[in-house]
């Protein structure tokens, strides 16, 4: 009798549930929609510039120079070479400085020393300073005070300061990923701190550093705002001839064409945007490829 009443008592208890309540499903869909808005916008943007720029996506884009009067024959050659010049010098300035600074902070500085903390908070802050403010710095210091004028070198110095925090932060992460016991092994053999850093830690961290460096350089490639203050907007129809030469870059050339309301220039701007995005995409793929190829050896 008792057994029977037990059976009766448990019967209404239904653990199968009634499926996810509607509210929960709606919530999940809203979140997913939030995520997709950004991705869809990106897809629309890429489709739009590709379709619009299609008629001009041919070799004249990189063989011809910009022209105000003949948009149908204008190209972006000076902007392409200018970008290459500026980025090369940016890399020359920013790479050694950034990597050595990261080495110091990660391998040499006493943890939590005042200098280390000061540099650290300073770098975090610099990473979030608006890029136009770096343009003001470049204008006042490099272009005017140091009289480097509106040159490739001024642009490169300014951009290298802009990406320095990114290089330092990513290099430190790569160094931190090298196991402690590699350093211990080296130091226990009587190697100095610098020998350990230069012969063990740094080589082991190179793939991670390379990834961070490429990504930060791609940031510099796409940067336009500081260069507006540094003379890149001048109408340039020649390739740079040296570090003190005048220059323009792809983003600046796009900006100049965008300002001109003639439809031919809008098409040209779209085509150049495609070129710029392809360049950035290639850089990103290389960075990701390096990271994946060398992931986790220990």
């Amino acid at each position, binding site marked *: 009798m008792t057994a029977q009443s037990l059976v009766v008592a448990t019967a209404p208890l239904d653990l199968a549930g009634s499926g996810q309540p509607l509210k929960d499903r709606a919530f999940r869909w809203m979140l997913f929609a939030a995520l997709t808005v950004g991705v869809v916008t990106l897809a629309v943007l890429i489709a739009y510039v590709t379709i619009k720029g299609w008629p001009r996506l041919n070799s004249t884009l990189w063989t011809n120079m910009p022209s105000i009067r003949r948009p149908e024959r204008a190209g972006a050659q000076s902007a392409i070479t200018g970008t290459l010049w500026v980025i090369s010098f940016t890399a020359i300035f920013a790479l050694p400085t950034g990597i050595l600074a990261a080495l110091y902070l990660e391998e040499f500085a006493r943890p939590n020393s005042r200098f280390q903390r000061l540099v650290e908070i300073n770098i975090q802050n610099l990473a979030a300073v608006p890029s136009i403010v770096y343009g003001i710095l470049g204008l006042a210091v490099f272009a005017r005070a140091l009289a480097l004028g509106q040159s490739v070198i001024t642009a490169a110095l300014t951009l290298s300061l802009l990406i320095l925090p990114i290089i330092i932060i990513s290099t430190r992460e790569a160094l931190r990923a090298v196991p402690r016991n590699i350093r211990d092994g080296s130091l226990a053999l009587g190697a100095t701190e610098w020998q350990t850093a230069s012969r063990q830690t740094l080589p082991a961290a190179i793939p991670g550093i390379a990834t961070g460096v490429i990504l930060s350089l791609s940031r510099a490639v796409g940067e336009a705002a500081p260069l507006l203050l540094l003379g890149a907007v001048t109408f340039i129809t020649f390739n740079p001839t040296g570090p003190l030469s005048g220059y323009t870059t792809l983003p600046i050339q796009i900006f100049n064409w965008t300002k001109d309301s003639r439809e031919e220039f809008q098409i040209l701007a779209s085509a150049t945007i495609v070129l710029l995005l392809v360049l950035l995409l290639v850089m990103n793929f290389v960075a990701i490829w390096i990271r994946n190829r060398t992931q986790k*050896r*220990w």
Partner: protein
Amino acid sequence: MPEQSIEMQLSSALTDGRSQGISDEISNVVFTLDDLRVFYGDYQAIRGVSLTIAKNEITAFIGPSGCGKSTLLRSFNRMNDLIPGARVEGLLAYHGTDVYGPDVDPIEVRRRIGMVFQKPNVFPKSIYDNVAYGPRVNHIKGNMDDLVEECLTKAALWDEVKDDLKKSAYALSGGQQQRLVIARCIAVRPEVILMDEPCASLDPIATSKIEELMRQLAVEYTIVIVTHNMQQAARVSDRTAFFTAELDEAGVRHGRLIEYGPTRQIFSAPQDKRTEDYISGRFG
């Protein structure tokens, strides 16, 4: 039953072991520790330790985890300097020179006093470059090929790797890697080798090879080994120091030295109840 078997194993290990002719007195002293204390910030990890370590002997530090034996070992070659906040008080003398003295260069200390770690930390380089690394950073002149061969031979690894010297050290097995680390260590011609649980990550066969190697190396080097494995201590060491962790009056745990003497004596006739409990498996 299990207690008895532990004791039996230990006694057979002792018979195989090398501590038969070891006397209480140490004539040829390499290290002298007097009231040595190690701190991490405000925390005292080890209470005053006083002992001497003899030349060309194998000295084992045993004891439960957290008793500070590895911490103590790392203060011998100033590896604790690398840990922020770590600090050593008291005396640790190497051939009569205070290792923590003002004129002492920690890099010179580490060159004389080599170290082998718990996990075989080979460098991400070739086998050859692993061995050659120490001599290169210490600017040791001479024929590097000969030196590499000599060290790999001494570490009982030469025959296994002589055709693969350019291969990555990561291709070796764990036991081989640990022998490579030993070869790398002796390539800078140290006098002392510190071993921090060198077999902790190895299988029994690889372990017995390392133990065999330790005995051979003791002819030339002074070895201090930290181990969790009491039978290993009984098999390979001449002298044994037993450490444990105890609460002080304020309820803080500190590591401290309980008993130190010839291995035979520590295992067969321990003076202290705590040592006896530990080696007979009654600990904790």
